[in-house]
């Protein structure tokens, strides 16, 4: 199914990923234990949350888990988007995102090991700390949504929705490959709409539970859109990277033109702008209203090095990539686009750091360099495991759908007349 060159690239990348996984997770654990034991925070009357060894271990793992979660669930969203709207750009990466969506069970299991213990056994979620809830009346008011049982039940509901659609779409796709029964295409089209609606609703809720509630006094209704646009950036840039390594051989070679990169580059551009639109409007509304229960989020993110990081994100997560991606020449060359995609993929780490870590008591008002280091090693470590599993899934099926007549049609429409 896959050519020898493709297979050797996959196994080479897999052994590299294994190395990253072991090294990353080991370094994270060791450094987190040392940092927690010697540089922790004890609770005080003003600040009732403790930061000890447990918290130091779980903080970076949670951020890393949130970083990679998108590669599973947003891949599923791109699969459904493809069936909803179609298009030559998504046709070439369809099997990548399908393989990505099949890693959702990995997040289901690692989340049970990372996210749920963080709720039950650590002070990372302030709403689990009685003294904290007592201090902030507004958090007590949210107890129906923010309590360990609701969190756990919701966790299982989110993953039930995501795994249901993962199972449906991957099953249909496999059967279409085997039987060429075009009634399956009708089902894929029909469920894509409801599936995407459920995706957006469930990710908005999940973003509230998993990430927004780290700062439980605060709330923002656009937070889910921030996470969705962030995940879309990750998935599209990751697909560009994988495509660039696998496109020189059949079956992808015949179906990839400069138009394909141009489309993918435009999607990166679109989501870069959407990300900054969402991030900025959240800030604008809260800054203008200046309400005590909302403004805390931004006050925690103000201070020498964190202000520098904020400006850095404006410049290098929005302005620079946007200007580079506005230029057509940069989108029609896969070599350039791959560089941009690597850049966009990894600058996401800083944005996720900015949105989560300053909510922790030891992350307020300045960049916590230890936590930043731990977040990076945890992302590399967990990412090693994820990339390994992703490539395992990727090589199980042909790199392009075999019996989907729409694929050929989309390709012809897009590249008509191309010699």
């Amino acid at each position: 199914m896959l050519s020898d060159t493709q297979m050797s690239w996959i196994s080479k990348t897999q052994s590299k990923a294994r190395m990253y996984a072991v090294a990353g997770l080991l370094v994270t654990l060791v450094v987190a234990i040392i940092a927690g034991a010697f540089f922790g925070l004890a609770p005080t009357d003003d600040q009732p949350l403790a930061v000890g060894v447990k918290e130091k271990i779980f903080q970076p793992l949670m951020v890393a888990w949130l970083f990679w979660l998108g590669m599973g669930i947003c891949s599923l969203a791109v699969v459904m988007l493809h069936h909803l709207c179609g298009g030559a750009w998504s046709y070439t990466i369809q099997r990548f995102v399908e393989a990505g969506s099949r890693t959702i069970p990995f997040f289901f299991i690692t989340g049970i090991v990372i996210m749920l213990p963080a709720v039950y056994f650590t002070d990372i979620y302030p709403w689990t700390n009685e003294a904290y809830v007592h201090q902030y009346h507004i958090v007590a008011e949210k107890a129906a949504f923010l309590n360990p049982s609701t969190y756990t039940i919701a966790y299982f509901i989110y993953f039930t929705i995501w795994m249901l659609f993962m199972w449906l779409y991957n099953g249909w796709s496999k059967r279409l490959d085997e039987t060429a029964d075009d009634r399956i295409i009708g089902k894929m089209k029909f469920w894509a709409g409801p599936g995407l609606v459920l995706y957006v609703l469930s990710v908005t809720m999940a973003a509230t539970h998993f990430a927004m509630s780290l700062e439980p006094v605060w709330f923002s209704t656009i937070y889910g859109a921030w996470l969705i646009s962030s995940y879309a950036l990750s998935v599209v840039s990751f697909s560009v990277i994988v495509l660039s390594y696998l496109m020189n051989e059949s079956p992808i070679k015949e179906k990839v033109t400069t138009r394909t990169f141009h489309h993918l580059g435009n999607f990166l551009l679109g989501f870069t702008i959407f990300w900054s639109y969402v991030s900025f409007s959240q800030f604008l509304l809260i800054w203008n209203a200046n309400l005590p229960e909302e403004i805390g989020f931004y006050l925690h993110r103000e201070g020498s090095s964190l202000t520098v990081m904020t400006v850095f994100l404006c410049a290098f997560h929005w302005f620079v990539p946007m200007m580079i991606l506005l230029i057509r020449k940069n989108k029609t060359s896969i070599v350039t686009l791959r560089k941009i995609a690597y850049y966009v993929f990894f600058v996401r780490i800083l944005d996720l750091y900015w949105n989560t870590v300053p909510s922790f008591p030891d992350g307020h008002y300045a960049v916590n360099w230890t936590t930043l280091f731990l977040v990076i090693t945890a992302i590399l470590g967990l990412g090693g495991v994820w990339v390994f599993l992703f490539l395992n899934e990727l090589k199980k099926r042909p790199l392009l759908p075999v019996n989907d007549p729409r694929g050929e049609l989309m390709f012809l429409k897009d590249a008509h007349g191309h010699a």
Partner: protein
Amino acid sequence: MSDHGHHDDTPKTYGLIAEFDTPDELLHAAESAYKAGYRTMDAYSPFPIHGLSEAIGFKKTAVSLITLLAGLTGAATGFGMQYIAMVLHYPYDIGGKPFLSWPSFMPITFELTILFGAFGAFLSMFALNGLPRPNHPIFNAKRFERASSDGFFLCIEAEDGQFDMDKTRAFLEAQKPVEVSEVHA
């Protein structure tokens, strides 16, 4: 013309046009014409053909640069207007915020960037194409209405330095078109 007492019965030539059956033949003919040294030519087809504009030597236009400049002008106008109103002419204390509350200025700045940018793109495209233009000599071409249904045309214009009625006709005939005909200006 007749006022001058000068009669010229032979109408001026706009160019020579060749009709093809398929997009591939048109693309191929356009590539050969460019290789043969022709530059002032145009191709006409019922739908966009990828690679055709490159084949006839279509160059990047100034539209993108003009759009960028117009967008920047819009940003400066949007921000400047608010600065003049809110900081210089009518400073007003709103919720204790500074007069130069730049985050609040962003929506208008953004909107005017888009507005000016869109105007820049649209108007410069119009102007650079020489539009509006009610008529065009190419409409004199035989069977040209098929360019919007199933005809694929390549027209080498008389303005081209290398244009020669006989040689250019021979060149076009060699591309195996359905027909080659003259277009009157």
